[in-house]
């Protein structure tokens, strides 16, 4: 209840008028003549009481008339809920991320969620969701209690990483279409690591009332985990000391300093055990070398032997494919001998994969079959034998990969073989006495991937480019650009294969890239990316994706793909097996994939190790979140919440109507008194 124009309430001072007239003003009674006062006696009655008794109704009507008129001008209103309780949507979100496997967290969360569902008024709609690697909607908004309870009972703990920011984004999107109020009940361990970088991402929309139900109380339990494992995805020579080694980082969260036995298991057998001295809340690295594995896929695991409060994260899995070194065809111009040297040296220095470089001049490549190579490098080759170029195109269309590096020859031949485009211009920075550097680098691109590039732009800032060809990117993806905007590294999907184009050369004439350490890492990653070996083995994080088909490939191209998950089940249906382009790795363990081109892959999948930090959010943060928008913008957001839940119903019309009736009654009653007075007179 409130008033839209409360300043009109000052008119209540007018109530003094009837009070004065009826109660305070000296009452003058017209004398009433009688024949004789012989039988009368003087009697005095309280004038106030007298008037109260006689004019009580008239006084009441006049006071009511003024009061109602003032109220009508003040525009009283009351707030009516836009929707009744049954119209509010109860949204139950259960955190089933990997950390919920610790202790009884998930069971507690599930039990509390069931209790909340049982307390729901019958007929109120509810919706069940889980917050794991992704926000999964288990039911639509329904009022069927049995169906809701069944959906909630079937929730199982997952291996994904919860992200409260994703929850906030989903609800903000949802509120754009659902205007009714939403009661969000979140049952979670409120892990601090689940917070997004920006707290605003967690903020709930105005029509959402967030209720938090933390299932983890008090301080976090001490927990050790295998934070990361650095192991070769492919291994050609187990005796190679540079590559045949496994480095595992053991991390402790809220832990005291201690020693732990760490074991390396290959195909279920412990082949080595090391003792790691882990400082308090610190990390320790454990090396296992050499890595003696058999040919083919080896399912490996680094495990902390002594258990802790959260044993699920005490192991990290990965797969190692032992095979003979893969051959790489390096096609270069006849007068270019440096590029093959630099590229081959870098390829040999790479630690993760084993390749053997076969260098050949372009003119001599006529009889070569590209399909026998892991990938092909075309270094400053302006023209290729037509037979080889045709074979190369077919190779790419079937899934092969080619790296094209444009050298100085691009100035003479605008046509770029196999790329399907031309070099529009030549950037000769040396002629102008200067050089260019890599201005922007997409470190998310697999060939340039760096987890934490430094201030030197991941090492690329120090590389000087003297000569580069300006290539129209068209449909190609630009992974790096020079500081003048010239595309430096581009990728184009052709058929099921891919072509990567470096607009500068691989020698030290057009740039000094081969002289920088970043060149080795670049070559290593490009080789692994183009050969596809990184897709076939190694380790991934839960909720990462494996590309099953090229994006440009048509439906049902190349037959079906077979995937077996860690639970030995096939997550893809028959239709999905023929059409799916990617696979989400939702479970921890080993995935076995048989690609359409006949290649097999075994991939170890591990939970995000941020889930191993069981430290919950502080109570201040929880309070701030549960009333997040009220704190962020107290007035506007609060008003929005009110607007969403309530609407103002103005009562001025009704008040004015009642005032009219009061006026009519007052007129009738007062005229009756006036008539009496005339008669007395």
């Amino acid at each position: 209840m409130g008033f839209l124009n409360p300043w009109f309430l000052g008119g209540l001072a007018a109530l003094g008028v009837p009070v004065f007239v009826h109660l305070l003003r000296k009452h003058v009674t017209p004398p009433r003549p009688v024949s004789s006062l012989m039988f009368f006696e003087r009697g005095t009655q309280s004038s106030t009481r007298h008037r109260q008794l006689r004019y009580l109704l008239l006084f009441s009507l006049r006071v009511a008339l003024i009061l109602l008129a003032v109220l009508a001008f003040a525009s009283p209103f009351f707030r009516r809920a836009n929707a009744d309780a049954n119209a509010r949507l109860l949204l139950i979100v259960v955190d089933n991320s990997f950390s919920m496997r610790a202790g009884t967290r998930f069971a507690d969360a599930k039990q509390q969620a069931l209790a909340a569902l049982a307390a729901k008024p019958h007929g109120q709609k509810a919706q069940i969701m889980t917050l794991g690697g992704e926000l999964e909607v288990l039911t639509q908004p329904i009022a069927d209690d049995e169906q809701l309870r069944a959906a909630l009972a079937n929730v199982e703990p997952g291996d994904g990483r919860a992200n409260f920011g994703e929850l906030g984004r989903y609800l903000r999107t949802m509120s754009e279409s659902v205007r009714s109020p939403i009661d969000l009940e979140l049952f979670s361990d409120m892990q601090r690591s689940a917070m997004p970088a920006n707290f605003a991402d967690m903020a709930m929309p105005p029509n959402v009332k967030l209720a938090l139900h933390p299932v983890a109380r008090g301080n976090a339990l001490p927990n050790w985990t295998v934070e990361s494992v650095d192991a070769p995805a492919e291994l050609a020579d187990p005796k190679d000391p540079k590559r045949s080694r496994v480095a595992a980082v053991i991390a402790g969260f809220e832990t005291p300093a201690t020693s732990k036995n760490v074991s390396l298991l290959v195909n279920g057998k412990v082949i080595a055990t090391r003792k790691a001295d882990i400082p308090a809340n610190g990390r320790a690295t454990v090396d296992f070398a050499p890595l003696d594995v058999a040919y083919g896929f080896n399912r490996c695991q680094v495990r902390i032997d002594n258990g802790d409060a959260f044993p699920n994260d005490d192991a990290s899995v990965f797969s190692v494919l032992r095979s003979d070194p893969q051959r790489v065809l390096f096609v270069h111009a006849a007068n270019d001998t440096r590029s093959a040297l630099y590229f081959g040296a870098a390829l040999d220095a790479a630690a993760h994969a084993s390749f053997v470089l076969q260098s050949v001049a372009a003119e001599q490549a006529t009889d070569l079959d590209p399909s026998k190579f892991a990938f092909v490098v075309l270094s400053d080759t302006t023209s290729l034998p037509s037979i080889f170029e045709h074979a190369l195109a077919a190779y790419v269309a079937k899934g092969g990969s080619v790296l094209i590096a444009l050298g100085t020859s691009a100035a003479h031949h605008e046509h770029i073989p196999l790329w399907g485009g031309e070099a529009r211009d030549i950037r000769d920075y040396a002629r102008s006495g200067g050089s260019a550097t890599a201005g922007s680098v997409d470190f998310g691109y697999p060939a340039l991937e760096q987890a934490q590039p430094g201030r030197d732009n991941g090492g690329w800032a120090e590389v000087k480019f003297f000569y580069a060809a300006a290539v129209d990117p068209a449909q190609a993806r630009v992974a790096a650009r020079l500081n003048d905007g010239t595309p430096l590294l581009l990728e184009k999907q052709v058929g099921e294969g891919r072509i990567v184009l470096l607009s500068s050369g691989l020698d030290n004439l057009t740039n000094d890239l081969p002289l920088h350490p970043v060149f080795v890492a670049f070559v290593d990653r490009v080789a692994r990316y183009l050969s596809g070996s990184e897709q076939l083995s190694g380790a991934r994080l839960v909720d990462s994706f494996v590309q099953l088909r090229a994006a440009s490939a048509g439906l049902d191209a190349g037959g079906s793909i077979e995937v077996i998950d860690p639970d030995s089940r096939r997550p893809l249906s028959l239709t999905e097996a023929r059409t799916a382009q990617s696979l989400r790795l939702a479970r921890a363990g080993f995935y076995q994939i048989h690609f359409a081109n006949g290649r097999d892959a075994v991939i170890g999948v591990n939970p995000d190790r941020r889930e191993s930090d069981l430290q919950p959010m502080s109570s201040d943060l929880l309070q701030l979140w549960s009333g997040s928008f009220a704190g962020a913008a107290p007035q506007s957001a609060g008003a929005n919440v009110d607007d969403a839940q309530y609407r103002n119903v103005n009562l001025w019309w009704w008040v004015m109507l009642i005032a009219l009736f009061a006026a009519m009654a007052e007129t009738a009653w007062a005229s009756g008194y006036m008539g009496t007075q005339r008669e007395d007179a």
Partner: protein
Amino acid sequence: MQRFLDPAVLAGISSLDLLARTVVDGFVAGLHRSPDFGFSQEFAEYRAYTPGDDLRHVDWNLFARTERCYLKRYRGETNTQLTILLDASNSMQYTSGPPSKMDYARFIAASLFYLSIRNQRDAAGLIVFDDEVRDYIRPSTRPGQLARLFAGLERAEPRARTNFAKPLQHFQNFLHRRGMAIIISDFYESPETIIHTAAPLRFHGNEVVLFHILDPQEIRPSMKGSSMLIDLETDQKFEVVPDYVKTTYRAKIDAHIEELRSRTLAAGMDYQLLVTNQPLDSALREYLTLRQEGN
């Protein structure tokens, strides 16, 4: 003038039989026989002669036939005179609705004048008084008397206060014959004083009737709230509460009426309470009926 000769009023009174008047002088001649025997043309009875009787009344014809001496007696028809004493004090102008007490008194007086002069050939007179005798019309049967009486009634406007002593003393000074005296007033005086003043009239053989005229609001006043009352005669005023009016006042006025009635009857006079909302003819009829029943 015609308002005093309302045919309905006259018809109402004429329908009543004046035989009800049995008192000596008769209220209306022609309808009432005189209780006193006198010289008249109508034979009444014979009575045996006793020594000392007047020989003029001996029926000599009967003596000649029967040699017995009888006195012949006749029923005497006497004319009386009606005198109305009309109170014209200020209290008589009170009204809660037409007519006022003064008008009602005029109606009654006019009706009685008409009845007595036209029907009974009686002499009729009027004394209008308040605290003084304001108007006096000697009783007479001369032509034009009725008009003079009516004019006297017209002139009688309420004013001043009531004082019964002076008008009644004046009435006694001019009263030489026995007759009927009707006092029309609201009698706002103590019954003892009223009777003490009116009783001498009765001693002279007059028939005295008190017409007590009151307004309905004077008997059962209604008062919604406390009111300031003003006395019409004394201009005295004070505040009166409704509770008193509803209880004590009604008891007092009832006691006053009853005392006045009882004292009047005890003094050999007649009393009639007339309320101004009663029909005029019914009031007279009620009075005459009471007289008939009383005789």
